[in-house]
């Protein structure tokens, strides 16, 4: 690593790490949350980038020579198109208009009668029952299946090598930390997202609560164990990213029974092992803030999509580092002056006392999610005004 970039990288990483510990860094860290925004900004094709993640580097190099950032949320390439191509299926995602969009399809492959098998052995269920339904070619169990699995493996391996290289390049050459080392989840969200779909889990909670609870318990343990095998060494300034989906769609009583215990369980497992956890709190968590008192002590960072961030920090700032504040709707449609006014108010209200990271309220997926001039102006302003 070039010495200047190395110094910058270390400064930035320390900035995040102190904020994660709810301490006061030298300045408010600026986190850039996007998937394809830099790709579109540099005129690259999303489709090409999905095929070859190394192309992201070109986008990062140009974008972040123009816009100041302290770190990236992730590399933005979770869905591996080539892996699914080998199975003749796009999984739950599809690339439309240059954006990777979620399409709920998993609920087609698991029904209530499958719960017993999932509970008995979640990994065996995934491999031997769920995947053959999701990927027809794997149901044959013959050389056609073996060939497809081998092709998928080659595609995954190639993508993995390129992603590792991209991580290193981004951190070592550009001096920009990439915070998320892995993306994790836990029982209720896994059931909703990957197995039963939204309608399925809501039905199950009402009609088969014991099955839902037991499946959530075994899935939380199984997936967390796999994640900790994959990302086996916690690192300062980096985190396990956990997006929270189902929780706020449940009524408070159901939230307490069917969601909170598993959220606490997964936070305890990771923080006890000294991992930093980044929660992306989708939807409005204001009615659920009192429950945060039960969070374990440890490095937890929460990015809030909705709600009054000042109130949120006042109420739960002792339990986790707070992130968010900049609405992408304003970055997209507001003037530079309006955006800077918002950024100033956010810093004035949320930065005192530390434990705060400046970022957008949502991921920027397309170029329309934020005007370049506004983002550049806001980041320059926060970099300067956010000094402690």
């Amino acid at each position, binding site marked *: 690593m070039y010495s200047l970039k190395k110094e910058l990288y270390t400064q930035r990483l320390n900035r995040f790490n102190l904020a994660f510990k709810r301490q006061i860094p030298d300045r408010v860290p600026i986190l850039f949350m996007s998937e394809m925004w830099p790709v579109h900004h540099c005129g690259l094709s999303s489709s090409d980038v999905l095929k070859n993640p190394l192309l992201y580097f070109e986008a990062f190099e140009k974008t972040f020579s123009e816009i100041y950032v302290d770190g990236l949320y992730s590399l933005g390439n979770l*869905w591996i198109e080539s892996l699914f191509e080998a199975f003749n299926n796009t999984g739950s995602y599809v690339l439309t208009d240059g954006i990777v969009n979620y399409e709920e399809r998993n609920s087609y492959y698991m029904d209530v009668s499958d719960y017993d098998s999932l509970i008995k052995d979640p990994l065996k269920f995934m*491999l031997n029952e769920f995947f053959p339904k999701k990927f027809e070619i794997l149901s044959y*169990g013959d050389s056609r299946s073996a060939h497809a699995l081998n092709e998928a493996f080659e595609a*995954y391996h190639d993508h993995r090598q390129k992603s590792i290289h991209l991580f290193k390049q981004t951190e070592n050459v550009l001096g920009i930390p990439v915070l998320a080392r892995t993306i994790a989840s836990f029982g209720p969200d896994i059931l909703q997202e990957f197995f039963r779909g939204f309608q399925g889990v809501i039905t199950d909670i009402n009609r088969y609560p014991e099955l839902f609870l037991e499946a959530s318990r075994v899935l939380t343990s199984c997936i967390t164990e796999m994640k900790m095998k994959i990302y086996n060494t916690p690192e300062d300034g980096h985190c396990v990213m956990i997006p929270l989906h189902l929780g706020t769609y449940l009524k408070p009583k159901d939230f307490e029974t069917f969601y909170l215990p598993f959220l606490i369980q997964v936070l305890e497992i990771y923080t006890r092992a000294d991992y930093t956890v980044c929660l992306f709190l989708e939807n409005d968590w204001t009615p659920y803030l009192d429950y945060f008192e039960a969070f374990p002590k440890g490095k937890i960072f929460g990015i809030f999509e909705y709600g009054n961030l000042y109130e949120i920090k006042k109420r739960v700032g002792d339990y986790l580092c707070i992130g968010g504040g900049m609405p992408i709707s304003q970055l997209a449609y507001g003037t530079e002056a309006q955006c800077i006014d918002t950024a100033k108010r956010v810093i004035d209200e949320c930065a005192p006392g530390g434990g705060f990271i400046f970022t957008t309220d949502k991921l920027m997926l397309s170029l329309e999610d934020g005007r370049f001039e506004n983002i550049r102006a806001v980041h320059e302003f926060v970099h300067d005004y956010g000094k402690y």
Partner: protein
Amino acid sequence: MDVLKIFGQFMNLSMIMENIEVMMEEKKTVEMLFDDLKKSHAEEIDEETMEIIIAEMILSMLF
């Protein structure tokens, strides 16, 4: 014309043979297919790394 007919019959026969071969293969579970995959890459990738890659791949297949 006769040559074409013979060629056509041969092609059909060879397709039938291929299908019979596939039908006679032992039907494997995905777990068994993953085990075969691990064995086939044992020389290039060490066991621990392979376990990690397979775990990552399985989780990616959920998406």
